[in-house]
C-alpha cells in the first residue's frame, strides 16, 4: 500500500461550511519536468502487464472512459475499470463501495426535499458532478440550494450531515499518494486507491467529532494541480516512481 508523499500543501482558506466548487481555488502552475499535462491529454503507465490510464476526466462517455472500455472489451488488463469509474463518481455508490472496503465514510441519506442542516449535498442526476457540491447552512438559503441541486425537486440528492465543528477538507491523490502532510489523508488516499484504482482523483473528506470520513471523490484538472502534485504525477508518468 503506498504511503503519503510529504510535500507541504496547507489547507486553503474558506473551505469549511461554504459553497465550494471543489477544484476552484488551486493555483495554476507548471510541472518542472516530465510529459506534458495538456488539457484532456491521456497518459498510460504500464506495470506488471496492467495499463494504468491517467486522465483529468474519467467521466462517463469521456474519451478516457471509452479508451478504457475498448481495452476491457479486448480482454486487456486496464486500471481503472469502467465499473470503478461509475462507482467512484456517484456519491452513494462510492461511499457504499468504500465502506465495504473498510474505508470510514460519511453517513448519508438520499432525499428529494428538505433535510436537517448543516449538511453537504450532492446532486444525483445525469448532469451532476461530484466536484460540485453544496454546503447547506442553517439559514434562508437552504431551501433555494435544495431547489437548485434537485432542479426544482425533479431529481434526488445525497446529503451528509455536518456535525458541529465539522469541516470539509480536500486533497489530490496521485496513485494513492497525497501531497499534504496529514497522515489521515495519506491513509484515506491509500485506501481509495486500493478500492478504486483511479490514478488521479481529488478526495473530499469530512473531519469532525466523529472522525475523518470520506465524503466523495471527484475528477481533478491538470491545470489545478500544485507544482508538487504535478511533479509527483510526472515522476509516475516517466517511470521514475514505481507503483
Amino acid at each position, binding site marked *: 500500500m503506498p504511503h503519503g508523499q510529504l510535500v507541504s500543501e496547507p489547507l486553503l482558506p474558506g473551505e469549511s461550511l461554504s459553497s465550494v466548487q471543489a477544484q476552484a481555488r488551486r493555483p495554476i502552475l507548471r510541472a518542472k519536468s516530465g510529459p506534458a499535462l495538456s488539457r484532456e491529454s491521456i497518459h498510460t503507465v504500464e506495470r506488471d502487464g496492467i495499463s494504468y490510464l491517467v486522465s483529468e476526466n474519467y467521466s*462517463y*462517455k*469521456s*474519451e478516457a*472512459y*471509452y479508451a478504457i*472500455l*475498448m481495452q476491457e*472489451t479486448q480482454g486487456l488488463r486496464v486500471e481503472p475499470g*469502467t*465499473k470503478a469509474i*461509475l*462507482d467512484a463518481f*456517484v456519491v*452513494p*455508490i462510492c461511499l*457504499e*463501495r468504500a465502506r*465495504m472496503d473498510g474505508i470510514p465514510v460519511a453517513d448519508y*441519506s*438520499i*432525499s*428529494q426535499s428538505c433535510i436537517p442542516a448543516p449538511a453537504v449535498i450532492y446532486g*444525483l*442526476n*445525469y448532469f*451532476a458532478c461530484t466536484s460540485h457540491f453544496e454546503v447547506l447552512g442553517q439559514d434562508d438559503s437552504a431551501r433555494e440550494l435544495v431547489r437548485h441541486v434537485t432542479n426544482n425537486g*425533479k*431529481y*434526488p440528492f445525497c446529503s451528509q450531515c455536518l456535525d458541529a465543528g465539522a469541516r470539509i477538507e480536500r486533497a489530490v491523490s496521485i496513485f494513492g499518494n497525497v501531497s499534504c502532510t496529514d497522515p489521515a489523508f495519506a491513509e484515506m488516499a491509500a485506501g481509495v486507491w486500493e478500492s478504486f484504482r483511479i490514478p488521479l482523483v481529488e478526495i473530499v473528506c469530512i473531519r469532525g467529532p466523529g472522525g475523518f470520513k470520506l465524503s466523495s471523490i471527484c475528477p481533478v484538472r491538470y491545470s489545478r494541480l500544485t507544482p508538487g502534485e504535478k511533479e509527483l504525477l510526472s515522476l509516475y508518468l516517466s517511470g521514475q516512481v514505481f507503483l
Partner: protein
Amino acid sequence: MSRLGIFVDRKTLSSTEQLNALIRCRDTAEEMGHGAEFIFPVDIRKIPQVDGLFIRARTDPMNITYVASRMAAFSGIPVIDDPDSIQVCSDKVHMYARLMHAGVGIPRTLFISHRELTPGRAREVFEELGSPVIIKEPSTSFSLRVEKVEDPVALLQVARRYFKLSDWVVAQEYVESTYDWRVGVLRGRFLYACKYIIPSQTFKIQDSVNGHIVYCGVESVPPAMVPPAVIDLGVRAGQSIGNGLYGVDIKEGPAGPCVIEVNDNPSLEGGEDTAYPHVYRDIVHTLLET
C-alpha cells in the same frame, strides 16, 4: 413468502398504461404468494430488506436507478436490471462493442471520437457505410438523439451537437424497414416477441413530427409466428449482454436479420406481452424463486 421490491421513479409514471403495468406486476407477485412493494428513490435504504428488486424506471448509470441496482448487488439481492446490464445497454458504444465481440449480427457500425472527426473522416464514414448514415448519441433512449444524415456536412453538424453529451458517437449503416421485431429475453431464454410498427412519417419507433409525437404501433406475436432466425438472434444478443431481462430490437435487412439494439428495462406496458400472459410470472419467479 418472499418480498419483491419494485423500484419506480415518479418521473416514470407518466401514463395510465405504465401505472397499470406496475400494478399488474405487483398483483402477479401477490398471486404467486409473495409480498410486493414499490420503492421510490428516497427509500433506497429499504433495498436490503427485499428478496428481489425489479427496476421499472428509465435506467442510466448516471441516475438513481443505477444507485438502486448497485445497492441491491452490494447486498447480494437479485436485481433486474443488474448494474452490468445497465452499464452496457445504456451506452450504445458499449452495447455494440459487446455485440461485435460476440459475433452477433448488427448493421455496419463505426465509433467516432470527437478527436478524429474531420471533414475527411466524415467522407470516409459514408464510403464505409453508404448513404444515408444513422448517427446515435450513445445514451439516447426512445430514439431521441438518433438522426439520419444524407451527406458528410450533415454528419458533422449532428455529431458536433452530440459531442456536447459524449466524446464518442455511433455511426451506423441504415437498414430500411417498416417494423422492428422486439424479442424479449430473460436469463438467456426467449420470453416474448412483438412487432413495433414504425410510423409512416419517420424511420424511428418514436419521433416528433411537426411538433407532434408519433408512436409506433405494438403487435404482440405468438412464438409460432416469429421467424426462428429472429428468435435465435435475439436470444444470442441477450446472452452476449448478460443474464438479465432484455428487449432486443431486430430488423430484417437484405442480408438477413440484424440487431439494432439491446434494451435493458424493456417496455411492457404497450401490449408487448399480450400473447404471453406469463411474462410477469416468469420475471417474479426468476427474481424470487431461483
